[in-house]
């Protein structure tokens, strides 16, 4: 056997498990060794489920030994963001207000991973209630970037991105409300996919902004992301917003290549405001696409600069309503109070961190009498403009592209004192959520500090086939194979 099993892809490890070259128990041991060697530095996990993981690995090995094949994720060690409910396993959303909460049920995505034979190794760190872009807003301390521990992994799904980059899991689930899968994928040099709104059930995902939230996978390759996507996508009667039609078929066209692909570069998001190294990587990737037969053109989507402002009214408004349920009545810590209102206000003040408090206040204000039309109402209209711009663009191109993040990984503490500066970093990822589109970040290079650069692709709603075909083409052309120094061998 070559290299460390912890650095295998899901596809590679799956083949090794089926050929008998590797057992699920050995694979689990390998990712545990990696976590053991890196967690003190990275703090990417909040909770490990050693017992559950061992049982799942043993079940996969028993199935293979009996000649059964439980599916493409059988025996594959995966991690799950801590805002997805896991029965009997602490689920905190990175918040003090859910400290000690042990959900009485599994989220649908967790059930689907378990049914597919996956080995869920643990719950990953995140910005509290998925609000943030650096994982510094976790009540349990920040996660650090495997490429440079003095820098953030991005957020809010920073723990999931970091474990996949480090090799403490072969894939992971995150959630993306304004970029929380794609941005950390970009900053950690892995693939991050946000599926079309409604394609993946959110039953058991702790809600942040319900018209924007979507669960999706992190992986080291586009193919692995497609495998995870297929495992979790599809209608769920427990989620009333879940899409009822068929899941897009991505495999027939995944390897179709760049020939004839129509690529639109979003003018408003692909120019100034991005670091030179980020723009250089974008330019190189576009040139490679063009040289391989793709048709690349620039397109103007004039509503894009306003999407960020609309988002930072809509998302906090929805969050202020969703987070009303955390009141010290049914679960979580309770502070004393003479009346129920005092008890709730004290418990909430104590349980929520500064960013969540800020967004609840912002959302409450935007929805309050007298300001509703000026802020929330107008933001909803801007959302319509964004959707119309996308619809027009996708009549002319198959995918739209721009940098995932205007910068590579930034230093811990650099933006924590300036919430607005942190928000502005989401400019490239937010429009996708407002439009309900699928989007993906693919690593395409390193900057002068050796930090990964992500390339973002967007497709029309339910356009996962075109999206993943284009992402795979970019992956092949970019040939990105670098790993952080703390991962010991190359991905195969």
């Amino acid at each position, binding site marked *: 056997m070559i290299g460390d099993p912890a650095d295998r892809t899901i596809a590679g490890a799956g083949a090794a498990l089926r050929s008998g070259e590797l057992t699920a128990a050995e694979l689990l041991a390998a990712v545990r060794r990696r976590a053991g060697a890196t967690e003190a530095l990275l703090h990417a996990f909040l909770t490990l489920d050693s017992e559950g993981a061992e049982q799942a690995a043993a079940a996969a090995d028993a199935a293979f030994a009996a000649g059964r094949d439980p599916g493409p994720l059988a025996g594959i060690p995966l991690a799950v963001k801590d805002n997805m409910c896991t029965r009997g396993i602490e689920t905190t959303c990175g918040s003090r207000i859910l400290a000690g909460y042990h959900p009485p049920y599994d989220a649908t995505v967790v059930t689907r991973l378990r049914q597919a034979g996956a080995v869920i190794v643990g719950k990953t760190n995140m910005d509290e209630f998925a609000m943030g872009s650096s994982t510094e807003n976790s009540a349990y301390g920040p996660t650090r970037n495997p490429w440079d521990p003095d820098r953030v992994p991005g957020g809010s799904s920073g723990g999931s991105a970091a474990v996949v980059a480090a090799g403490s899991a072969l894939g992971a689930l995150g959630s993306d409300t304004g970029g929380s899968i794609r941005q950390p994928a970009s900053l950690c040099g892995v693939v991050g996919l946000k599926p079309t709104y409604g394609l993946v059930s959110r039953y058991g995902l702790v809600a942040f902004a319900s018209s924007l939230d979507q669960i999706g996978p992190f992986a080291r390759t586009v193919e692995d992301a497609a495998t995870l996507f297929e495992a979790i996508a599809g209608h769920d009667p427990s989620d009333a917003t879940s899409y009822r039609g068929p899941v897009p078929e991505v495999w027939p066209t995944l390897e179709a290549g760049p020939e004839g692909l129509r690529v639109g570069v979003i003018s408003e998001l692909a120019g100034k405001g991005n670091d030179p190294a980020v723009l250089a990587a974008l330019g190189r990737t576009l040139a490679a696409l063009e040289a391989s037969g793709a048709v690349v053109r620039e397109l103007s989507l004039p509503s894009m600069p306003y999407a960020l402002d609309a988002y930072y009214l809509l998302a906090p408004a929805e969050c202020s309503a969703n987070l*009303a349920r955390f009141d010290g009545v049914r679960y979580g810590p309770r502070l004393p109070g003479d009346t129920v209102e005092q008890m709730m206000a004290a418990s909430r003040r104590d349980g929520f961190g500064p960013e969540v408090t800020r967004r609840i206040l912002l959302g409450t204000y935007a929805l309050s009498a007298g300001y509703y039309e000026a802020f929330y*109402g107008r*933001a909803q209209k801007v959302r319509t403009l964004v959707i119309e711009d996308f619809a027009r663009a996708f009549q002319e191109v198959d995918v739209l592209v721009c940098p995932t993040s205007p910068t590579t990984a930034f230093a811990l503490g650099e933006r924590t004192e300036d919430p607005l500066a942190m928000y502005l970093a989401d400019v490239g990822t937010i429009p996708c959520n407002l439009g309900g589109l699928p989007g993906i970040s693919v690593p395409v290079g390193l900057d002068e500090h050796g930090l990964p650069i992500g390339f973002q692709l967007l497709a029309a709603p339910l356009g996962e086939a075109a999206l993943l075909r284009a992402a795979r083409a970019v992956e092949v052309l970019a040939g990105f194979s670098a790993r952080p120094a703390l991962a010991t061998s190359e991905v195969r």
Partner: protein
Amino acid sequence: MPRGTIPGVPVPIDIAKVARLARLALTPEEMERYGAQLGAILEHAASIQALAIDGVVPTAHPLPMLNALRPDEVEETLDREEVLAQAPDRDGPYFRVPPFMEEA
């Protein structure tokens, strides 16, 4: 009281009222800090006030979805004991909370 304003569209932020509506028992220092931060964020967000969007239909949801209906069938629900085990305070099969109003 700290106030944030939007250039051209002065909007006072009654942060104490907002905190009360949000059920957050903030200290005076916290109210001042959050009030100032909200002002800065809303000032940036005021860019959308400049857009000509009269007549545009607001979007609440990205995909056209109608009401999701399902057959009215009896299904398994969560185990009551398992749910109540998470409660900070309980009284038999009920969640217990402090009084809603003072006794008359």
